């Protein structure tokens, strides 16, 4: 049963105030409901993308390890390590925020992931190493993408929970409470009218007796 909201006095002014509050609450409920549905839509889309990115990353890793083991077998570990040390470089990631229905989620973008010159000697190395490097760069891109997706998923999930609580409070507490209080006030007014009528009747009878 909805709980009634405490009103100072059951007057028409209070009734008008309550009706205004009910209209506001109903409109806000619609907006919050739409927001939740949009957040859920985004959440599901990101969840789907996360699954795709994860399976892609696993595939990329397995291809990279295969290529790396072939390159290691071809060059030998020591020679390969020497070339890889020379190929070390810093990675540039453009990080920022984007906003989805009031939720700030991170946006990462790997800069210059694919490079033509990778730092190792192209004369002494085979195409296996080139393939390994190319696949590793692909893995890096997917890792950055996955990081963004997973963080977004967490943020959106948290916001959906929070917004749903607000929506539930509106749907099951505030709006029913306001409606019940308005109904209660109407009942009070009707009762007052009936009392007034019976009082008038009583007065009329008393006057007639005199």
């Amino acid at each position, binding site marked *: 049963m909805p709980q009634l909201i405490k009103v100072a006095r059951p007057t028409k002014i209070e009734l008008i105030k309550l009706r205004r509050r009910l209209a506001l609450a109903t*409109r806000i409920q619609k907006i919050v409901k*739409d927001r939740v549905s949009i957040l859920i839509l985004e959440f599901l889309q990101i969840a789907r993308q996360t699954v795709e990115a994860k399976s892609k990353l696993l595939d990329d890793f397995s291809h990279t390890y295969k290529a790396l083991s072939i390159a290691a077998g071809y060059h030998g570990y020591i020679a390969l390590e020497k070339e890889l040390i020379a190929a070390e470089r810093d990675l540039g990631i453009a990080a920022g*925020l984007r*906003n*989805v229905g009031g939720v*700030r989620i991170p*946006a990462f973008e790997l800069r210059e992931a694919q490079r033509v010159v990778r730092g190792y000697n192209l004369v002494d190395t085979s195409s296996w190493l080139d393939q390994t490097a190319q696949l590793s760069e692909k893995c890096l891109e997917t890792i950055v993408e996955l990081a963004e997706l997973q963080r977004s998923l967490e943020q959106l999930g948290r916001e959906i929970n929070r917004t749903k609580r*607000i929506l539930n409070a509106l749907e099951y507490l505030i709006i029913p409470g306001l409606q019940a209080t308005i109904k209660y006030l109407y009942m009070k007014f009707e009762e007052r009218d009936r009392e007034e009528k019976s009082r008038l009747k009583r007065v009329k009878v008393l006057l007639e007796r005199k």
Partner: protein
Amino acid sequence: MVSELPYERLLQESLKSELKVVNAHLPSRQKSLADLLGEEYPHVLCNDGSTHLFRRKELDYLASLIETEEQKALLLPMLIEVNAGRGEMAVICPGEVEGKVISKVLDMPVTPRQKKIVIYKPQLAVIRKLLKTTTQYLFPPKL
């Protein structure tokens, strides 16, 4: 029968702030695609002081959809108006370029009415999948 709800006022306040939150991310000024393509880190400033970063891949994709001279007319981020309680959305299109872009993204003809293109949830999912950073939601404050 009348009971006191101590957190009723609190909820009212949180609802007011909720409305502020949903539209806080809107850009203070939209930028044209041509301008954004020239920036190293393409972004716009939002009303809440934060920055909204655009993905370069999306900008390149948009550039591939329209002619070079139309790039100046396409203002980003495109705004998607969410109509409360009606289950339909509208892409705000002040010019013809937006209509062309949406038509190509959805792979169907669209007709802007009163500078708006009405779309539904399945179409919204397609648009948001392809244009994640170049579109933003707008909750009209018709309260």
